[in-house]
Each structure stands twice: as C-alpha cells, then as structure tokens.
C-alpha cells in the first residue's frame, strides 16, 4: 500500500517541446509545447492518476517516464537516482523495473507471437530463468490476470482473442518481470464498462500483492477516482490541480477540473 515516506518517482520541472518538420513549401517550423515545467512525486505502492483531455500531454508524460522520450529540460528520478539521460546497461536495467501498458491492445501486441512467446519475451530479453522456469512464470502471470486455466491461452495468437483478453495479455507481459513501477496509458479506453472494472480490479490486486506503483493515465475522472489514491489534472501541458482523489472530485478548485466534472455524463438512476 501507499507509503507516504518513500518517494519512488520524481519529476522535476519537466518540459518537452515537439517540433514539426519544416514543410517543403512553407519553410516554417512549428513548435508544439507538450509539457511545461511539470513537477510531481509518486509514492511507493500508490496508484497515481493523471487525468486530462486528448492533447493535454498526459501520454507524453507516460512516455517520458518509461524513457521512450527524453525531456528538453528538467530531471527524472527513480528511487532517488537520476534517470534523465541514462544509456546502455543502466537503461536496460531500468527497463526491467519500469513497464508500460499501452492503450490499444489491437496494436500493442505483435500478431506473429503466440501468447507464450509474447509474455515470455521480456524474460528472455532480461535473461531471467531458464526455459522451464519461464513457462511456469508465464503461467503464473496469465493466472494473475484472470486467464485461467493458462493452457487454454498459451498457444493462441492475438487475432484469436477478444479485446479484453488481449489487454490482459498485455498486462501479463508487463507484469511477468514483477516491475516496481508501471505506467498504464488508458488501458481500458477500448473496452466495455464491466470489462474496464475487471481490469481495474486486476491492477489493484497487483498493487496489493506485489506493492507495484502505478501511474494510471486516463481521460475519465470517474475511472481515476475508482482506482487511484491521488489524482493530478493536466491541461495544455501544465498540472492544474493535484491531490487525494476524493478531494479533487468533491472540492475541485481549478475551473478546468470543474469543467471536467460537469461534462461527465450524469447517470441519475
């Protein structure tokens, strides 16, 4: 569970700007500011929600944390170690500890890999276990995401599975290395409501059992409230509000947060 004394991840004044390529005809380059001076601390064992509309910079934040992008300015720290510009062995070791679950399970899984190959790939890359123990780890991982019995799934391919099953395969793949920190980028936006809750419950279970810390990226305040301890609201690349989930919903202080709450469909029944 959340340990308020131990910060696992720190973002210090992170800025990121994307530049469009100069067009052949109009020589001007456009700058798109994705993140402006974003600072936040995430505690060990917490589920932290990052909420914002499309284009607000929430996915960029996630990609920076797993080091798929590099910030222009600012510092990233994991367990107190500066990871802003790590390379080589240090980066590989980092990748073992930090994993990501992507939004669209129809695009994030390699269609040529069977479930077994897909989930065991991280083990092979990081040379964890041998061929026998790996199969066991893959089975355990599948059971933990509710794909039970695992025999029914091991040799299937992505196209033979439903969206919900695929997303659970993606989660099993991220979890098989027992990472410390996981970035989940809108893991349920392609799924139905009851399936989404099932996925949330699986993530919560991982936190409880393995004390994994999550950054949960979403555009739904209701989903963030269901799953998260704390929420940060991001708007046009800037954090506008941050605090305990229930507080943000009950007493939003920023007008943008209020707009998000107002726009949420009311289900009066």
């Amino acid at each position, binding site marked *: 569970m959340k340990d308020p004394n131990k910060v696992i991840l720190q973002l210090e004044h992170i800025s990121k700007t994307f530049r469009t390529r100069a067009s052949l005809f109009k020589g001007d380059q456009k700058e798109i500011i994705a993140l402006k001076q974003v600072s936040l601390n995430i505690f060990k064992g917490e589920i932290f929600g990052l909420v914002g*509309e499309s284009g607000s910079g929430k996915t960029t934040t996630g990609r920076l944390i797993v080091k798929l992008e590099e910030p222009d300015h600012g510092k990233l720290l994991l367990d107190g170690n500066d990871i802003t510009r790590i390379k080589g062995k240090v980066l590989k070791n980092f990748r073992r500890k930090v994993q990501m679950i992507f939004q669209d399970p129809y695009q994030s899984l390699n269609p040529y890999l069977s479930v077994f190959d897909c989930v065991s790939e991280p083990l092979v890359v990081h040379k964890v276990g041998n061929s026998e123990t790996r199969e066991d780890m893959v089975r355990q991982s599948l059971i933990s995401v509710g794909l039970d019995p695992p025999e029914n799934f091991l040799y299937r391919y992505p196209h033979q599975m439903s969206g919900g099953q695929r997303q659970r395969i993606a989660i099993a793949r991220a979890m098989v290395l027992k990472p410390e920190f996981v970035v989940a980028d809108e893991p349920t936006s392609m799924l139905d409501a*009851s399936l989404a*809750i*099932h996925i949330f419950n699986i993530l919560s279970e991982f936190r409880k059992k393995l004390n994994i810390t999550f950054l949960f990226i979403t555009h739904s305040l209701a989903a963030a409230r269901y799953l998260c301890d704390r929420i940060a609201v991001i708007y046009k690349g800037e954090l506008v509000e941050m605090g305990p989930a229930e507080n943000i919903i009950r007493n939003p202080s920023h007008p943008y947060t209020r707009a998000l709450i107002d726009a949420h469909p009311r289900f009066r029944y």
Partner: protein
Amino acid sequence: MTVNNLSVGYHTRKGFIKSVQGVSFALDQGKSLGLVGESGCGKTTIGMAIMGLLPDNASVTNGKILFEDQDLLKMSKREIRQVRWSKIAMIFQAAMNALNPVHRVSDQISEAILAHDTDISEEEATKQVQSLFQLVGIPMDRLKDYPHHYSGGMKQRAIIAMALACHPSLIIADEPTTALDVIVQDQILNAIKDFQDKLKISVIFISHDIAVVADVCDNIGIMFSGQLVEYGRVEEVFNLPMHPYTKSLVASYLTLDKDNVQLSPYFGETPNLIKPTAGCSFCQRCSVADATCRLMAPEWIEISPTHKVLCFQCK
C-alpha cells in the same frame, strides 16, 4: 420504423455466427432509441442491416425491417440506394477515418447533397453546408479546411453535418462519442439533442455507455449476445432494471456523485455464437440462474406496457 424478429449471421470459416437473433423493436417518428451492449453483441450489425451495408459474408436469415411501410430487406440495391443517406443516414464510429483526407470538408458534404438532389445548384449546396455547419457548431472560417486541420471533435461534428445533409428522417448513430474525451462528448451529445429537437429526426443510438444513452434516448434496448434482453422506456429500465445483465451494467457504472465502492461486475467470456446453448445465453455469467435457465430459452415478460424483459427469474 419497425424491426421485426430480425436475425443476421456471418459466414466464416469456423461456421455460421448468429450475430443477431430475433430482435424486434419499434421507433416512432421523432423519437430516439438506444441500443446498449458489450462489443460483439450485435448492435452495430443491426445498424448496418438497416442501412443495407452488411458485408458480403453476412446474411439476413429472418425478419423484416419496415421503414415508412416498406420492407428495406426486400428492396433491390438500387432502391435501397435511394433511401440510404436521403432518408436514413448514419454517423459512423471512428469519425477520424470516415472523412476523405484529400478533399476539403465542405466539398465532401456538398458532394453528398449534390449526389442525391440533382436539381440543386452548387451554390445552393454550399449555402446548405454553411447552415449545417452552423447547426453542428463548426466555425464558418473552417469550411475550406481539410480533415487533418480538424480536431477529433470537429471531425465528429462534420460527420454529423454530413449525416444531416440530405434531411433524413432517421439517423443511426454508432458510438459517435466513443473516441472523444468527456468535454467534447458533452458538446457532441448536445449537438445531437439539438438537431433532434429542431428537425424532429428519429435516432437510433448505439453505444456501450449507459449514461450516454440515458442522457439522449426515450427508449432503450439492452442487448446481450445477439438478443435484446430488456426493452422499455429509459426511466423505467434504469429505475427498475430487471435483467441480471442490465443490473450488472447499472452497477458497474462509475459515477462521480455517488460513493466510491469496490465493484465486482459479473464477468465471463462472450458466449459462443456459432453453437448457442439451448437455454438463456446469459446463464454462465448469471448469479440467479437455475436449471430451467440452462435448458430452456427464456420468454418475454411484461413488467409494464412499456417495459419488458427476457428472463425466467423476473416473473
């Protein structure tokens, strides 16, 4: 418009998938109906069947779709082309892919108008496009833009404008807001309610989000594995959900105004639609199912004249 006992299936290598099984509903002029269910339950197939846009491997095995006293399923391809878009239009899922990227948005919409109304001049068509843009709330100076200049919400508005272009009397909206965030969703839903009010168009609203349907529709049909399992007026169905599946949908809806509680939705894999079980298709996920449910197909039970449910346990 009435749909009577509609059954649609797809021929695949693994067998014949009974995607829609005996669905019936009626929709009065100017009213709206919501079809709700998880992915793969057949809601989009119904929309496509009404539009006459089912893929080649699909076949309608039974039923009638009566629209203004004509059976759409008996029409020739040519006849249905007269009806499609001019009387029945569709707002597609994933609007970002529904616009042609190499034509200006306004040209695409006026093209639709000109294709169906040969008497109209190009200038008049452009004027109509302008008033459509006003109706759905796209600024006039964006008329001549290309689709990639538009944001997701604006593309969705353009698609709505296109659906309205030929003054249809029925619009099928297939998950029109699924890819959008809440603020834009709210705007689009208001735009739909607005044109429905002003133009008295009937709408079939396909969605998996019950709150969206509750917000927009008069009637609602809950679908599970190709069947309607509960049907009625929105207030009645949501105030007194009867079918265990409807109950689970209502219970697993995440709100902002109620207390935050741990939810445990009924969960199971989608039933096999190639060889459906003899009994109720919801059996495997149902917490109240008994032996009868497993062996016999359920029958409709009337809760009120405007609310019915397909379940043995609701007697």
